[in-house]
């Protein structure tokens, strides 16, 4: 047992580092930051936070794949490590948006909360029992609620936090209920044990209810229709870096968690990869319907948006449909395509929020028109924005294109159109044509429109520009050489 604890300790070292960093950040702000300007306090906090994230990242890298630890409570398989590195990187980028963005009061606490949320994500990535899964989920969620409402100067922020919290609370309750049912049915909290029991002992109606409740939580976490309602308000109201985190790292972690839960835990209730064999009624069909609804709703409603962030929110709902599709396909081809999609999607989204953060330092950046003339204000930001947006639109050679391609290919590979995923993939292709329209509208504002008043040149901090360029370069490199990520699996 002691050896096991050693392994567990090594496995949880990154989490430990992050928690420690969070505490150091708060302490440092209390001691060193007293009486100093807001700007330098922000910088110090971000710097410390980044150091912590880098350290966590290095540790994750060095530890590598540890396999199951803690008696199977955590599974640090390849996906887990990849997702953990991914969320750390995405959290890092979210953190960096603070540098360019409007400085807020109490930066240290903000950074600390962000780090706590990251700890939750790390847990979600590896959790292999119901308990740890819920723990990670809630740790992340609670931090995110606060982060969403952090901007006390704006009522929208509070509204966003409240909405996010209320819906999140309900979904957490539902999930917990579902978990308890699962435990009751199978007598176990380990995913693998649950799966074994479900195979030998097919669940009845109660099992279906439990699975349904899990799906509700999944829908909420990844913003899949019809559980997407929080997304537009949160994207619009939350502080930029919070929104960035919610849109990127949180999704990646959520997708990983539910992939593990649904396939390795509830796999027997999936209805099978091939529906015809075990009849309808499995959750695959439900997820397929949710994915289709999400694709349709997200992309079509996005067409009508005039507010940049709401547009991003609906586009995110559309992409959530794609993620759900990837989740389905993962049962056949493994989580590689899903991870690739989620990671590159997160990177592009974080990048866009970074651009928004920089832009809103000087003027507001709410409506599309606020982007007008960005190419004059800062060609660099405009160029990076173009890369991020085109990646979301799925234009090669950017990573977003390959993400879609590989997920659609995997979905069609299951059984062509014999499987609902195939149809959803076709729908997704159609919807990605639709999406180009609103993405181009964004770029049109940034690159084409000449604003009525000649704009001032935007000051972009060096760190921020480096971060943007790094993210953009990442999308290009991953897009041209997708095997860097795909080859891992």
């Amino acid at each position, binding site marked *: 047992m002691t050896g096991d604890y050693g392994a567990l300790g090594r496995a949880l070292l990154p989490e430990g580092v992050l928690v420690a960093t969070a505490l150091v950040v708060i302490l440092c702000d209390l001691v060193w930051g007293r009486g100093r300007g807001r700007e330098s306090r922000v910088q110090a906090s971000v710097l410390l936070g980044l150091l912590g994230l880098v350290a966590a990242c290095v540790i994750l890298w060095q530890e590598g794949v540890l396999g199951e630890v803690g008696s199977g409570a955590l599974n640090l398989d390849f996906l887990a490590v990849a997702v953990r590195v991914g969320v750390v990187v995405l959290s890092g980028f979210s953190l960096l948006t603070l540098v360019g963005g409007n400085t807020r009061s109490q930066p240290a606490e903000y950074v600390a909360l962000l780090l706590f949320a990251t700890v939750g994500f790390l847990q979600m990535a590896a959790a292999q029992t119901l308990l740890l899964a819920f723990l990670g989920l809630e740790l992340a969620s609670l931090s995110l609620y606060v982060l969403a409402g952090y901007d006390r100067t704006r009522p929208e922020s509070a509204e966003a936090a409240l909405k996010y919290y209320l819906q999140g609370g309900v979904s957490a309750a539902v999930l917990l209920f579902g978990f308890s049912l699962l435990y009751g049915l199978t007598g176990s909290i380990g995913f693998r044990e649950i799966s074994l029991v479900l195979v030998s002992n097919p669940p009845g109606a109660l099992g279906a209810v439990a699975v349904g409740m899990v799906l509700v939580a999944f829908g909420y976490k990844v913003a899949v229709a019809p559980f997407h309602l929080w997304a537009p308000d949160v994207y619009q109201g939350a502080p930029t870096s919070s929104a960035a985190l919610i849109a990127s790292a949180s999704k990646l972690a959520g997708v990983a968690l539910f992939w593990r839960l649904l396939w390795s835990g509830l796999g027997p209730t999936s209805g099978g990869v091939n529906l015809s064999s075990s009849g309808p009624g499995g959750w695959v069909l439900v997820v397929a319907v949710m994915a289709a609804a999400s694709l349709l709703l997200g992309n079509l409603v996005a067409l009508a948006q005039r507010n940049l962030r709401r547009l991003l929110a609906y586009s995110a709902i559309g992409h959530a449909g794609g993620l759900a599709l990837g989740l389905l396909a993962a049962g056949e081809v493994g989580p590689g395509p899903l991870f690739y999609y989620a990671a590159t999607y997160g990177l592009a989204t974080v990048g866009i929020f970074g651009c928004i953060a920089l832009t809103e330092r000087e003027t507001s950046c709410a409506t599309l028109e606020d982007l007008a003339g960005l190419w004059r204000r800062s060609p660099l930001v405009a160029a990076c924005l173009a890369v991020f947006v085109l990646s979301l639109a799925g234009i090669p050679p950017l990573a977003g294109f390959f993400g879609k391609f590989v997920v659609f290919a995997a*979905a069609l590979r299951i059984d062509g159109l014999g499987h609902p995923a195939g149809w959803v993939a076709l729908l997704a292709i159609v919807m990605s044509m639709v999406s*180009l329209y609103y993405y181009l509208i964004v*770029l049109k504002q940034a690159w084409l429109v000449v604003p009525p008043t000649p704009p001032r040149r935007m000051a972009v901090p060096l760190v921020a520009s480096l971060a943007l360029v790094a993210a953009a370069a990442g999308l290009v490199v991953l897009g041209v050489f997708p095997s860097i990520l795909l080859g891992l699996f």
Partner: protein
Amino acid sequence: MSLLPWIPYVTFAGALLAYVAGSRSARAGRVVALLTALTGLGLALTAAAAFVPGRELQTLVNRAWIPELGIRYHLAVDGISLTLIVLTGVATTAAVLFSWTVSERVGEFFALFLGLIGGVYGVFLSADVFLFFVFYEIAIVPKYFLIALWGSTRREYGAMKLVLYSFAGSGLVLAGVLWTYGSGAAEGFSLGALTAAAARLSPVEGGVVFALVFFGFATLAGLFPLHTWAPTGHVAAPTGVSMLLAGVVMKLGAYGCLRVALPLFPDAFAAWQTTLGWLAVAGIVYAGLVALVQDDFKFVIGYSSVSHMGFVMLGLATGELEALGGAVLQMFSHGVIAGLLFAVVGRMVYERTHTRDLAELQALPLHRLIPGAAAIFVVAGLASMGLPGFSGFPSELTILVGAWRHHIPWALVAGLGVLVAGAFTIKVMQRAFFGQLRGPAESTQKEHAAEHAPMEPLTLPEKAGAALLIAATVIVGLKPDLLLDWIMPALQSPAFALTLTKGHP
């Protein structure tokens, strides 16, 4: 030959360089763009000189790229692609020359412009369908900005319509390709692997997938009734971009039909052939008739492009060896001729008169004000009418031969299309340039001309660009063998064998 794989990258590099140079000095940007275009043309011609025509695709590079999906970085050429690469070189060089007067955001203009061209080169070189598709989509987005930023008449509308149509077309292709890959359990995305996979689809599935892929590509090729983006887009685009759109980008679609859709689905093609042929001839005649009644000079040319691409599609639809060769030749021919026509309309006439309204142009003695433009347009118009001696003639002739062999009514309707093309070309020529050329009173004409402000004579870039394009169409017109010797062997490759025989059940 070994340098051919670098053409897209040289062009992309040129795009970056042009951006940097162009943001400092407009002149430097132009020069960089011209040098890049000339490098591309030079590489293409060097490769062409060393080219040994053969049946198979001649692999240039073939290495693993994304092994997880069996995707390879595979570049190859045969006579068909080489023809189009040379065309791209010629059209790009001319288009840069005719974009010499772009003065706003020059660096960005040429960067996007060359980015588009790099994608086009890439498509023509790709032998892996995934790679093909990547380059194909790279060529889409720059179009939006090129048109919306530097265009004219309803440019944002035209740009958005064009790009959405292109993207929708590519979406159909993507759906079809992925469907084949998934349902047919392909090993990868090479043409061979997908052909094998396509053969495993059920006939119904094959028919649907073929339709997706073919119509997806045909959207870009301007097949009736999917052509509506073309006239508005061409008209909205700045001159150099119109030249490229009509000259090479429409060819991407036709090339995709020929390279991907036809060899992959010979059975489905045979089933769809009748529909395709009728759509093609409908496009030829319909677009020609619409061109006949336009009042905007550039719209006439825009519709003429659709009409001419109808011939390409007709050639493909016949599935006859000669006609397929003719279709490729027509791609080259139309690329050059449409470029020239757009150059005259957009650069030579519009930038001097600031109007494209034929009624207004008719009131101007343009044949005296800019005689060079009039002469060049006459040559371009004759070429466009398919007059023998120009490149359009051998291609239309061979396509008609194929139509006779396959389905006689197509030949008859297409013959009507030839007539309509002649009619609208003569009409627009007469209205635009020779509206005031009349009667024996020469002296009064001179006085009349003197009332109008003198116009800038043709500049050196204009003359050079026009000379290049005219030379291309005349050389190929008088000696189509230069290209046919490349094209015909390539069409006899095993890849097309089934396509050619399935036409005759």
